[in-house]
């Protein structure tokens, strides 16, 4: 039986992916106002652009401490909300203007050792019909202020629904919500087909030693399809049945107040059955990430991140599809480079280069046998609030103009779906889209 990776991607599916990417990359709010109320901090203390998701070193420490830090002035209600309205102008297709998303966040500390982040997301399916799903989940138990061999240490446990979402550096795709739109992407990429993002449950034990050394080890299981359905997910995106899954993370990070850098390794290994009655594929992701931040006096902030993940697959079966025998081994390779400049913690320009490639396989990746795609995200945004000296430091507004462009899809730039002569051809650039969005979080 052919796996989901062998599917031909029609235009509507590709456009849906682009729309989802734009939603995630352009508007994800991790600068949850409930945290600002809990800590007395401004959004901009944890997020350079005062809206997220990219974290400052201070934001990383807040996350590592299990979202439990507080201003010590009583219990705050750990609830926040976000509304997003978007005008979407696709290269091909109809323009739309609509309320695209409404979210509720349950986010904050339960005790000095327990805290969490839960996002319940309601999406507009395009016809003013709304569906609600459990989005991100990260519940933590943390032991802070430990001393090991005379050095400061933090040890914690995270239960979450996306490998890498809990990462403090937050450059990995499931945390940054930025990964290359992939026809055959890695398991750690939220933009891969049948990705693990929000559809698995697991977590691990993590530790920060001497403020610089981070390590995490954990495991995940895919939620049953019935649970995915109850949580608001279409079962067609089921990541499949996972077994023997291990997640490993190791990173060195250095906060120098005016600058920050990190270098990390990440690995995920699993046996996956997709569909669930298929034979298991042995899959191993191995990646590295590098980040740098110039923070200075916070007037001009530059954040650079590069993530490179290679996935190796030993397929459980090598089916014959349209007379072609699929390969029994294959690779997928995802790379993301992102550069963001933020002025006065209010005006930002983000440019990202997203590349996904994989082993050529004519049977699995029709019409050209190449699962390669290249895309760019260019986003300009303004966040007037969320600073100590702004009208409010505990809520925010984000006005964003985002352009998502493709230069390659299915391995080519022209006639990406291999339409026969005389038929309507689709170019890679036909997947481009421009959006204007307004998000408000309070």
């Amino acid at each position, binding site marked *: 039986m052919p796996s989901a990776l062998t599917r031909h991607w029609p235009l509507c599916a590709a456009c849906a992916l682009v729309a989802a990417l734009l939603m995630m990359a352009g508007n994800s709010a991790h600068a949850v106002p409930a945290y600002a109320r809990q800590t*007395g901090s401004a959004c901009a203390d944890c997020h350079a652009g005062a809206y997220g998701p990219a974290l400052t070193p201070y934001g990383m420490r807040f996350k590592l401490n299990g979202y439990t830090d507080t*201003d010590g002035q009583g219990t705050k209600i750990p609830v926040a909300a976000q509304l997003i309205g978007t005008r979407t102008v696709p290269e091909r297709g109809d323009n739309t203007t609509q309320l695209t998303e409404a979210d509720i966040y349950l986010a904050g500390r339960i005790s000095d050792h327990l805290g969490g982040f839960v996002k319940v997301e309601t999406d507009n399916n395009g016809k003013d019909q709304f569906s609600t799903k459990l989005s991100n989940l990260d519940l933590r138990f943390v032991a802070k202020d430990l001393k090991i061999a005379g050095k400061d240490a933090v040890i914690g446990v995270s239960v979450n629904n996306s490998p890498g979402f809990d990462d403090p550096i937050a450059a990995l795709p499931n945390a940054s919500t930025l990964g290359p739109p992939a026809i055959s992407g890695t398991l750690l990429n939220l933009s891969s087909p049948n990705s693990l993002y929000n559809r698995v449950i697991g977590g691990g034990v993590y530790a920060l030693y001497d403020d610089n050394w981070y390590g995490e080890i954990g495991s995940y299981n895919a939620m049953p399809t019935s649970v995915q359905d109850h949580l608001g997910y279409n079962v067609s995106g089921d990541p499949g049945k996972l077994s023997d899954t291990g997640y490993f993370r190791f990173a060195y990070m250095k906060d120098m107040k005016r600058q920050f850098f990190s270098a990390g390794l990440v690995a995920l290994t699993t046996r996956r059955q997709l569909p669930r009655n298929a034979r298991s594929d042995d899959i191993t992701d191995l990646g590295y990430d590098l980040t740098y931040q110039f923070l200075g006096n916070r007037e001009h902030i530059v954040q650079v991140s590069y993530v490179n993940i290679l996935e190796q697959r030993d397929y459980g079966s090598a089916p014959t599809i349209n007379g072609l025998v699929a390969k029994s081994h294959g690779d997928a390779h995802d790379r993301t480079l992102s550069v963001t400049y933020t002025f006065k913690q209010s005006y930002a320009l983000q440019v990202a280069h997203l590349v996904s490639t994989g082993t050529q396989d004519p049977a699995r990746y029709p019409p050209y046998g190449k699962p390669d795609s290249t895309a760019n995200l260019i986003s300009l945004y303004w966040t007037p609030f969320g600073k100590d000296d702004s009208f409010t430091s505990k809520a925010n507004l984000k006005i964003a103009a985002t352009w998502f462009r493709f230069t390659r899809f299915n391995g080519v730039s022209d006639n990406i779906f291999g339409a026969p002569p005389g038929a309507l051809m689709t170019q890679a650039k036909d997947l481009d889209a421009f959006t204007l969005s307004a998000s408000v979080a309070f």
Partner: protein
Amino acid sequence: MIEPKLGRAARGAVMTMMLCCGAHALPARAGDAGAGADVFKQECAECHTTRQGHNKKGPSLFGIVGRHAGSIADYSYSDALKNADWVWTEDKLHWYLSQPAKQANPGTKMKYPGLDDARQLDDLIAYLQSNH
């Protein structure tokens, strides 16, 4: 024998005046408050503000120079700082901020490794002194 006693009394009177006047009347260090504002953003602003009555993870630093340690009523200090029997003079701030906080005040909640750039420290203290 008398003169030294009078001298100590005079010094005590000056100290009392410094405390009563918030110490800012006698700038002891040649810091640049403007440059100190940048140092504050870089070193302190994530945990403290200089807005009156606004605590973050750390207490408001509005009027810190001349204030007794652990004295903001609605901030939850560590026992270590509550029991610290000192006033935040410029010299005390210089002493405190030039070393790891947990070394200066064992048991404090404050996690700060210290500022080892003397010029920046003078600028920072000048900025703190200007906020009152």
